[in-house]
């Protein structure tokens, strides 16, 4: 019974206790198995790497701002070698050390809370998964001290990444880091699946589960089936490099294209691995701030399932120009995957219809996500045709396309989630004023950065070039893009400032400041070590809301009955 004012999570002065049974505060960070604390560690690590990878991006953009230049920064001259290292490390850091851990952070904090569990299924495995992330980061960055990092792109296509053309330790450490991070993700995925399948509170049926948890579940299944593949592929590359293997060496019976198949069999699902949880975040934020239930809950679940299923059959659309695959087949599957993606777009938009939309930082970020993801999705159609891809593959058009999805849309969704859940994690709200400034700057920034890249790609600028000739007309578009990238950097810094300010001085809000729907809002902010001392009855997809608004319970129950009785 929580009517008593005993808050085991607070000190007598109202300070938040470290939610760990261990006494020493600093030791607690190393020994904790609490999913919330691990989530925070994931988030801090991910944000650190966002700043690292973002700095690399700014250096890359500055180098490209003007034609025929080699940028000279204090202590760093962006030569061809340095440029290739930067583009490799930027992508690796952003994909494996920023986005993946950031999603693990969201999942770790909110999956147990949303399903009414006390912790993850395997808390110690969870801690182990986390600690492998900084480990992987250290291994990756060790290469800077042992003769230079990998410079063969984040795809590390063989033979370029093979022993002959990338001697030295860079690629070896890159393989090691990815293997470590891959195992971390795989163990994390197993943990999420078991948690979701086994630890749901009584009453929390699969079809009453928040969409965020659904998306984490499906993401975890994708991880489980794609990460081991790339781990195996990378080990083959390692054997080629260090033990004289010939897997990808055509002179000795090896097959160059095989590497690309293995890599993209993982690489494409990876895109969905990175975006599905963020779609889940958006599916939480938009209904709450529209004051309406999610439009088409069931459609969302099936759309996500079909995206995951199709996502395993589209990988070779990254290989349309290799001349070694069936372009038509993969064009067909790639087209198909746009249908469920579209269904999601329409459902989000329809959720806002006739709502009472609460214009706050979180919701505005979510609207930004919809708007950006739409551009990312539609430009994907051009690639999916196969035919048009012959022109735009490996040009800045593709760079623009995937950055719209993985930067523009992903950052908006991530910030939407952080503004939405920050009160739950700290008991305080992030500053709205800074938040709205951030939305505006970020919106202008990402569009200014990535929209010109479509034009550059259509004009024939290949990606991954250190510089380009004068007189091609690419200079001003690149300058525009570079200017925008600094705006993106400003928006991210604004968030960092907002975070540190609001942590201490943000407005103190109650346990459920948004009058939100799902179980995490049924406990205190921040939640105690054991998460819940009581749960509301779970009869629908939004138990907390129904408890607070008994007038809509009947309506929600009616919908719940329909969903549960006809799963198809």
């Amino acid at each position, binding site marked *: 019974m929580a009517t008593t004012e005993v808050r085991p999570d607070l000190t007598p002065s109202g300070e938040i206790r470290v939610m760990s049974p261990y006494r020493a505060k600093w030791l607690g960070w190393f020994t904790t198995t609490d999913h919330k604390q691990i989530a925070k560690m994931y988030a801090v690590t991910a944000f650190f790497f966002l700043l690292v990878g973002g700095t690399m991006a700014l250096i890359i953009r500055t180098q490209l701002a003007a034609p025929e230049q080699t940028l000279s920064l204090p202590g760093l001259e962006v030569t061809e070698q340095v440029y290739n290292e930067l583009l490799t490390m930027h992508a690796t850091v952003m994909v494996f050390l920023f986005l993946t851990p950031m999603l693990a952070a969201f999942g770790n904090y909110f999956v147990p809370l949303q399903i009414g569990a006390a912790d993850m299924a395997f808390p110690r495995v969870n801690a182990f998964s986390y600690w492998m992330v900084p480990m992987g980061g250290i291994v990756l960055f060790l290469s800077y001290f042992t003769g230079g990092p990998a410079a063969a792109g984040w795809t590390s296509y063989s033979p370029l990444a093979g022993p002959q053309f990338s001697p030295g330790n860079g690629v070896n450490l890159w393989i090691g880091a990815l293997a470590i991070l891959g195992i971390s993700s795989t163990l994390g995925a197993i943990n999420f699946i078991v948690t979701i399948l086994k630890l749901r509170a009584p009453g929390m049926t699969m079809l009453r589960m928040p969409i965020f948890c659904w998306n984490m579940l499906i993401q975890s299944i994708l991880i489980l089936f794609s990460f081991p593949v790339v781990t195996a592929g990378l080990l083959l590359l390692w054997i080629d490099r260090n033990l004289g293997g010939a897997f990808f060496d055509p002179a000795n019976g090896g097959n160059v294209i095989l590497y690309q198949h293995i890599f993209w069999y993982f690489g494409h699902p990876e895109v969905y691995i990175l975006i599905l949880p963020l779609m889940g975040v958006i599916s939480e934020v938009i209904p709450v701030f529209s*004051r309406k*239930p999610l439009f088409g809950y069931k459609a969302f679940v099936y759309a996500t399932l079909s995206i995951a299923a199709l996502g395993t059959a589209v990988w070779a659309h990254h290989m349309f120009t290799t001349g070694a695959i069936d372009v038509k087949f993969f064009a067909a599957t790639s087209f198909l995957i746009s249908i469920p993606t579209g269904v999601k777009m329409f459902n989000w938009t329809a959720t806002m*219809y006739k709502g009472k*939309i609460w214009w706050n930082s979180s919701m505005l970020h979510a609207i930004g996500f919809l708007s950006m993801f739409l551009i990312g999705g539609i430009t994907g159609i051009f690639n999916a045709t196969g035919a048009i891809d*012959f022109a735009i593959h490996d040009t800045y058009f593709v760079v623009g396309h995937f950055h719209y999805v993985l930067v523009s849309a992903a950052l908006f969704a991530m910030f939407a989630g952080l503004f939405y859940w920050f009160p739950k994690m700290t008991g305080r709200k992030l500053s709205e004023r800074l938040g709205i400034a951030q939305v505006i700057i970020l919106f202008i920034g990402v569009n200014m950065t990535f929209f010109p890249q479509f034009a550059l790609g259509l004009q024939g600028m*290949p990606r991954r070039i250190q510089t380009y000739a004068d007189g091609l007309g690419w200079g001003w578009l690149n300058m525009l893009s570079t200017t925008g990238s600094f705006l993106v950097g400003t928006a991210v810094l604004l968030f960092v400032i907002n975070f540190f300010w609001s942590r201490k001085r943000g407005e103190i809000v109650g346990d459920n400041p948004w009058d939100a729907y799902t179980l995490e809002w049924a406990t205190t902010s921040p939640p105690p070590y054991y998460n819940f001392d009581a749960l509301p009855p779970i009869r629908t997809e939004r138990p907390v809301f129904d408890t607070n608004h008994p007038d809509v319970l009947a309506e929600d129950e009616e919908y719940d009955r329909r969903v549960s009785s006809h799963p198809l």
Partner: protein
Amino acid sequence: MPRSKTRRSPVAYGLGILGLAALLAGCGAGQVEPVTEQGNGLHGLYLIVFWMGFAIFAIVEIAIFYMAIRYRRRKQDDESLPPQIHGNDKLEILWTTIPAIIVIVLFVLSWIQITNVQEVSADPGMRVEVQGFQWQWTFSYPDETLSNGEPVQVAGVLGEAPPTLVVPVDTVIQMSLKSEDVIHSFYIPQALYKLDVVPGLDNKFDITFDEVGRFRGQCAELCGLSHAQMVFFVEVVTQDDFRAWMTKTRTAAEREASGGDKCKPEGTKVEVAAKNVKFDKECLAAPAGTPFQIVFDNQEAIDHNVAIYQSEEAQPAGEAALFQGEIFKGPKEVTYDVDPIPAGKYYFVCDVHPTAMKGTFNIGEPEG
């Protein structure tokens, strides 16, 4: 209700989008102007996809912003909840079906274009062999051979002027792509096409330029350090100009192959180096009738020497050399003194590696 006010925003937004569309339409919807037959078809598809995508973009984007603005919570609103709509099955079916139809149409159109560009003729008008290497290109014309059986070649040298591939207009040209090191990608932006140059694969494609001009091309697959410098040009000329160019190039190549202008005696000191079991020069020259010196720089820790023979067959046949330098291990530089040799065309080889290391040795009258 300030309805008129809230409506203005989506309208303004729509106008903005239309303005952007007009701007883009002015320049081929952003894409470069195609100069090949295959490229024209691809550009047509691009325009269809562009406008279809643009329409979807405009509709959905306007819908998003319209909803967000029209249904925003206002100050005067009470705390009551809006209608709790859970969904609509008919709408779900509708917005699954319509995109499905669009996608099927686009797929059929793509199918046609893919078939078109992937078609490889058994009897093309001309063949070009493209060799990509770190970090330049060599183009050879297998149909145009020299007297020694080698095809006419245009070679690129890193850091110098990029190579220019000269081809006739309105001819089906079959490009065959080869690489012996890493993966490259042969990309001509104005052909709207690229194909990877993959070691171990023999990728081919047909291309028909329908416009005369000079077009830029570039490697599009990260291939190591100087990837950005792997630029080339394609010069499309009329049939007549192409024949004239070919005749000129062939003459120059024949001269080159037979020793050429570059290989004339210039003083009594001849320099040659050995590296990677190769001589750095294919042709040496010295004046006739006077003693001269060969400065031999053996740059590797392998036995090499320089010897001069009467003919190419003399060394393998075991005939005596006109001059035989001492065999030694590098890295070391040795100066051989050679006795006078009468004018004529000779051969030089390394006695240790006679098949890999050989070249022509011209003994003639000094220049001027």
